[in-house]
């Protein structure tokens, strides 16, 4: 890997930038590895990077059915925040936010993390009470979050309509200033490049077709489209396809896969300074550095693997956006897309060991996995390296669906995750 630096940049300028090597070489699978990660999204590549960097396991492969970062990592709305109600969630998501800080330097790759603030709007009395409760809970957990009056919301985000006569009046908002956005593709590419430099093999266009288990039930390796690979530690980070991979190991999971849509507008000049979320009307929006408004819609009501959603979901979201931001009523939308999100019954992830020895899982992030990318990667790597979960992800085990110790963020954070 050739480091990105001012010095190297100037040096390359004299050579028409012909001396930059490829970010990561395309590797053929070896016969065996110390650890395999299934799924080369941000979470999986992050896990491979931290395995090599922090936990000293460099003989690692990341196996991907499609192309790197082509699933939900490339299909989300790039929002980062950690203002979750419950202690377990606050610790988990804030672990990720702390890693986002300084990640560009760590990876030597500009992931464009922008702390522009995430403003969650309250439209009714219930919202106000619920958000204030969130703010107090967050502060007790050391997570920044503050209450803004409607006028302060307007000052922070000028395109907002705070007139009391609108259909969705703004009664205030909860602002997490450390929240913001990052460039999603850069996150995948940065992790891939840095992991590859530490010796990790990234194998794309190679679907896992089976998980081979020994006589004692432990994992022995994975069958892939490009042959069998022996490995005693397999971490699955396959988002919407996790149920399918887990069935290969004979496990049924408490997951359902739903389409979730997002869309972007035509690019315009900088107008929208922060991220605004509105759980009640289910719309959230930010402006990318290219100038597009990036808008997140809701999930469809039915399970699906189709990677596309229904039009009326988008229409519903845009109707709400136009009510809250009348300035955007004549914006044209350029693209919509859908990703398949794996949703657990309590809307909290499953991150840790499985009943099968040597098989680890990172799934169930539902509609909000991007914000957790560095944290999930680090914790999956920790769990695989120590064969024990870290104390942050210990509550996110599979047993909670049996013993009832759920982390019920479904109710705590309403719909937007």
């Amino acid at each position: 890997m050739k480091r990105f630096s001012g010095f190297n940049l100037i040096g390359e300028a004299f050579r028409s930038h012909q001396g930059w090597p490829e970010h990561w070489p395309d590797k053929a699978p070896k016969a065996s590895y110390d650890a395999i990660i299934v799924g080369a999204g941000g979470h999986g590549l992050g896990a491979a990077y931290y395995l090599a960097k922090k936990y000293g396991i460099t003989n690692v492969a990341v196996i991907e059915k499609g192309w790197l970062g082509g699933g939900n990592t490339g299909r989300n709305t790039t929002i980062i925040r950690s203002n979750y109600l419950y202690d377990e969630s606050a610790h988990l998501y804030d672990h990720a936010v702390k890693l986002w800080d300084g990640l560009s330097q760590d990876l030597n790759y500009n992931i464009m993390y922008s702390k522009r603030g995430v403003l969650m709007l309250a439209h009714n009395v219930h919202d106000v009470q619920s958000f204030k409760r969130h703010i107090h809970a967050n502060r007790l957990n050391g997570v920044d979050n503050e209450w803004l009056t409607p006028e302060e919301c307007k000052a922070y985000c000028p395109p907002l309509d705070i007139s009391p006569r609108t259909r969705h009046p703004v009664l205030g908002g909860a602002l997490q200033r450390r929240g913001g956005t990052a460039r999603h593709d850069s996150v995948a590419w940065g992790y891939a490049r840095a992991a590859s430099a530490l010796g990790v093999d990234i194998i794309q266009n190679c679907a896992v077709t089976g998980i081979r288990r020994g006589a004692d039930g432990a994992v022995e390796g994975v069958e892939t489209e490009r042959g069998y690979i022996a490995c005693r530690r397999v971490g699955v980070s396959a988002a919407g396809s996790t149920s399918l991979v887990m069935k290969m190991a004979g496990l049924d999971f408490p997951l359902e896969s739903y389409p979730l849509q997002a869309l972007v507008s035509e690019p315009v000049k900088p107008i929208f300074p922060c991220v605004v979320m509105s759980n009640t009307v289910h719309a959230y929006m930010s402006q990318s550095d290219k100038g597009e408004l990036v808008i997140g819609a809701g999930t469809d009501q039915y399970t699906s693997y189709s990677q596309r959603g229904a039009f009326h979901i988008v229409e519903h979201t845009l109707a709400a956006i136009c009510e809250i931001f009348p300035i955007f009523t004549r914006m044209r939308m350029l693209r919509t897309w859908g990703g398949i999100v794996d949703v657990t019954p309590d809307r909290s992830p499953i991150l840790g060991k499985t009943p099968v020895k040597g098989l680890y899982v990172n799934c169930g992030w539902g509609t909000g996995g991007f914000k957790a990318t560095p944290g999930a990667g680090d914790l999956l790597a920790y769990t695989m390296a120590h064969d024990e979960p870290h104390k942050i992800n210990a509550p996110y085990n599979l047993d909670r669906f049996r013993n009832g110790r759920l982390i019920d963020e479904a109710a705590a954070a309403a719909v937007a995750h």
Partner: protein
Amino acid sequence: MLLIHCPYCEEARPEVEFVYGGEAHIARPVDPSTYSDEQWEEFLYIRSNPRGRHHERWRHTHGCGRFFNAVRDTVTDVFETTYKAGEARK
């Protein structure tokens, strides 16, 4: 948007008239007090989540208001068939 054939109204109607009711043919416990934690987990939380044929419940909320079952392909979202509640799994 899906077009869904309601087996009671015998008509294909747009999806917004319907509410999805989750996976079908998950039987409630006959004698709940004898259920173990594993059986409760299986009943409440474990779902087949297949890629392909999926048996699911829908309710024609803004129509006849009745629950029925459907078989839909989760890759193409095409309905294979819909049938009345209480009929055998198709």
